[in-house]
């Protein structure tokens, strides 16, 4: 697979696109839990580890999930490209 896209600009474009997708996913997760679970009457809130459920999922779990996602994506989908290589100077 990696043979196909050796062009550093293509790799960089794809990785920037991944950044956009990640941030959209992050926003959706954050918004859906915060306002989906948080709009109830506070008296009806459920609690997880002491935190209101909306806060736990949206903020705490959100950060954990994003950290794991970033880790997986960077480890498996990001490609190392050499910076001192002369060959892409002209591309």
């Amino acid at each position, binding site marked *: 697979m990696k043979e196909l896209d050796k062009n*550093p*600009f293509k*790799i*960089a*474009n794809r*990785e*920037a696109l*991944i*950044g*956009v997708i*990640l*941030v959209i996913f*992050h*926003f959706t997760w*954050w*918004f859906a839990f*915060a*306002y989906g679970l*948080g*709009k109830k009457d*506070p*008296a009806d*809130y459920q*609690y997880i*580890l*002491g*935190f*209101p459920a*909306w*806060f736990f999922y*949206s*903020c*705490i779990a*959100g*950060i954990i999930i*994003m*950290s794991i996602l*970033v*880790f997986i994506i*960077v*480890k498996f989908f*990001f*490609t*190392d*490209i*050499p*910076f001192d290589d002369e060959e*892409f*100077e002209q591309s």
Partner: protein
Amino acid sequence: MNLVATITLFSSVAIIFLIGLLASRTNNTSASFMEDYYLGGRSLGGFVLAMTMTATYGSASSFIGGPGVAYNEGLGWVLLSVIQVSTGYFTLMILGKRFAIVAKKYKAITMVDFLKERYQSKWVVLLSSFSIIVFLFSAMAAQWIGGGRLIESITGLSYHSALLIFVLTVLVYVTFGGFRAVTLTDSIQGTIMLIGTVILLTSIIIAGGGISSIMTDLSTENPNLITPYGADGTLSPQYVSSFWILVGVGVVALPQIVIRAMSYKNTRSFHRALIIGTIVVGIIMLNMHLIGVFARPILPGIEVADTVIPLIALEVLPAWLAGIVLAAPLAAIMSTVDSLLLLVSSTIVKDVYINYIQPHAPRKKVRKLSMTITAILGIIVYLIAIHPPDLIIWLNLYTIGGLEAAFIWPVVMGIYWKRGNKYGAIAAIITGFSSYILFQAFYPEPFGMHAVVSSIGISLIAYVGVSLSLKKV
């Protein structure tokens, strides 16, 4: 005055200061003074890159102001603050490898350098240098005031002496150390912040009798404190969501962040920085603002929001530890200041002086000039911070949004869209910037959102529209 806390606070600062000086020694060996002084010779490793991004971005607002607001607004403000986690991965991924490659090809040292090579226009350079100098200068003054106030509230020294101590420390190591010293000390400061917030949060949870009991106390006082809508229910979903632009996605256009994205050694450090940055920003932002909320049942009735963090630290921690932990916000302010100082100085020396006044200045002269300008700037800001004029405070409020509205498209489209040209860039800078100021002055929340959203929209239309209609001859 708390003697023990004062001693540990200043020892921490002194250690940071020493490292700045030691790091500056490596300066003399490199071939290009400019590249070394302002960019650390493009050799940052992953950990240092992540930490310097975090420390630069996490300024007085996230460590002093933010938790203070969270104290008053409750969990709704924490919800808003964790948006900043996205800066940990988004800014680096978007500017990404393409930006580093292009910046290296252009031999760009500053953001303005990049814009200059990309658009080949004197006006783009002058406009952007001007906005950077004006806005970052005032941002810097505001941070110095914050630093002075923090030292004042911990040590009981007068504001003037506190400010003087703060300024001297920053000046010495920025002037002699340059970017490498700043990024190195940033890493230490970032680490202090990270550990400090964890210790402080844990101690507060223990002091408050566990999370559940703190939540019960909060909802007994005012049930709104544990909803996403703020203490009086005024934080609307669209308003809070618009902060995804202001403190999340838009950060990609802040000059102090942009130059860091061209300073890393290789893609391995870049990959590590992405992972470390996301985790570190996540922990720091969540913890700091939770500390603000949790402080409420323990120390009710704090009037001045900015003093929440120092007061709660002195309350729940032994004095010696409070001193070290409070070195974290102080460190945050310092590292923001150092990088701003360096950035304004590089804008003057590199973007204006070398480009338009004396293009072939000898290395020795550039070196002397860079250090002198950095030092002089520091002294001017100090004089301003002693008696801050209202204009500075006002400008600082607009800094982040204004810079984002002006630069986001010239930078991002400059990297990814070949047809963007200098006319588009000039149009985007002018419309983004002026529309933001106008919105803030007359109509601060268009569509119930922060003004930056509309300004960035207008600026995009200007960039694309003008680029397409005025093609390069």
